[in-house]
């Protein structure tokens, strides 16, 4: 009997695993924005890699800092050289889990507000964060969006005194990813 129970369990777990759906994207979008007196600071990164594991609720993001593009190329150089230090810290990443996975149904159309908790790594500094966002399912297409704020000081990104008035210490981040199913 015991053996059969184990076998059933194994089969059950295997079944869960095989139906466990992962969703991924290679061209997710992350933008940041900060209002400044001279010129708003805004940049887009359209090469964000992200996966959502439908069965465990694991969420991951990874992006290359030098793939943020600014309208002003001088800003882009300064961003990479003096603030995010891309040569030293090429990637920013997030590794976390959806808190209330049971409320999200990846196969039924709808909009599901979620809170994702995990570790956000920027500029070589990792902080524990909880970020709220939305997972929407529409005709089998899964979209994840989120808007949140990052305090630069938390990630040891320092602003020199001379430009302190021109750069906000808290920047707005906007995440938008359209996921494909993993085959």
């Amino acid at each position: 009997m015991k053996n059969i129970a184990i076998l059933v369990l194994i089969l059950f777990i295997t079944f869960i695993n095989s139906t466990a759906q992962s969703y991924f994207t290679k061209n997710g979008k992350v933008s940041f924005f900060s209002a400044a007196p001279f010129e708003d600071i805004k940049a887009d990164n359209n090469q964000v890699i992200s996966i959502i594991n439908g069965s465990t609720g694991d969420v991951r993001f990874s992006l290359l800092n030098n793939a943020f593009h600014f309208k002003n190329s001088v800003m882009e150089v300064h961003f990479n050289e003096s603030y995010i230090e891309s040569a030293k810290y090429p990637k920013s990443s997030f590794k976390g889990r959806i808190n209330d996975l049971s409320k999200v149904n990846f196969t039924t159309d709808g909009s599901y507000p979620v809170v994702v908790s995990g570790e956000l790594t920027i500029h070589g500094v990792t902080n524990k964060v909880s970020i709220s966002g939305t997972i929407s399912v529409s005709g089998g297409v899964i979209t994840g969006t989120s808007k949140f704020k990052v305090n630069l000081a938390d990630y040891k990104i320092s602003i020199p005194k001379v430009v302190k008035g021109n750069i906000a210490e808290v920047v707005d981040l906007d995440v938008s990813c359209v996921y494909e199913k993993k085959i």
Partner: protein
Amino acid sequence: MKSIKLIIVFLFFCTTLVAQDDTDLMKQLEKDSNKTNYTTATFKSTRLITGHTIETLGKGILDVRILHRFAPINRGLYDFFGLDYASMRLGFDYGITNNIMVGIGRSTWQKTYDALFKIKILKQSTGAVNMPVTLTFVSTFATRSDLARKDTLNNRILINFADRTSFSEQLIVSRKFSNNFSLQFMPIFIFNHNKIDSINTYTKNKDNIVYGQKRKNTFALGFGGRLKVSKRVAINLEYYYQMPDAKPGIRFNSLSLGVDIETGGHIFQMHFTNANGMTEKSFITDTDDKWRDGYIRFGFNISRVFKVGKP
């Protein structure tokens, strides 16, 4: 009990499998999106000290440059170590594309108007395309407006255009070896048919000059580098060696040592140099003094960038 243990072990195994799966998938995705990673900010500015670096302005960026070179510091306290006399160049550079820029300028020294064209041909990169160096071509034109004669009615007429105009063609090869260290090599050919007719007032060799001697085209080899000492401060060195056949004895090679300080949209470049001019022809071929004799000038460049065009 045994089976429960087994189940626990198995469950644990399955969870790690899932986690493993996520990590592998992330790695795979990162590998797939491996793109060409271009090296940026090999130098802070489009000029190393007086000469060019491989850098060009971004598209739609206007760079207003104000350059000053003072008299030699060995003039002592009476002339406040040369600061009483300034020679300047006002310049405007503009980025047409991310790889092509143009510029114009006007210098005090010999009342020179100049123009430049600069194009980045190869870009240092890693990733999908592996390129060890950056290659840039710079072409400049400079014409003096101080060479005039008086006609019979005593009107000022500029002399023959060819006799007061110079051109330069320069190739610059650079490599950013690390985040803090970049080197460049910049051979330059200068077409210069200006006669030697004016010399810097403060030079040591003022009395030895033979006026009217016609110049030859000059080939010079330039070397330069920068060492970043902090995120916003870099130390630069620039030297141009003129091939001896075209270099008159009264002229010397230009050597400059400087510091770049960057603050937002400004770059301040402060330096010590033996060169007085600020166009290719004048600072490479018209340097009248040697460092060794104490004829060292303090100078600075201020660069302020504005975004004017649409990207």
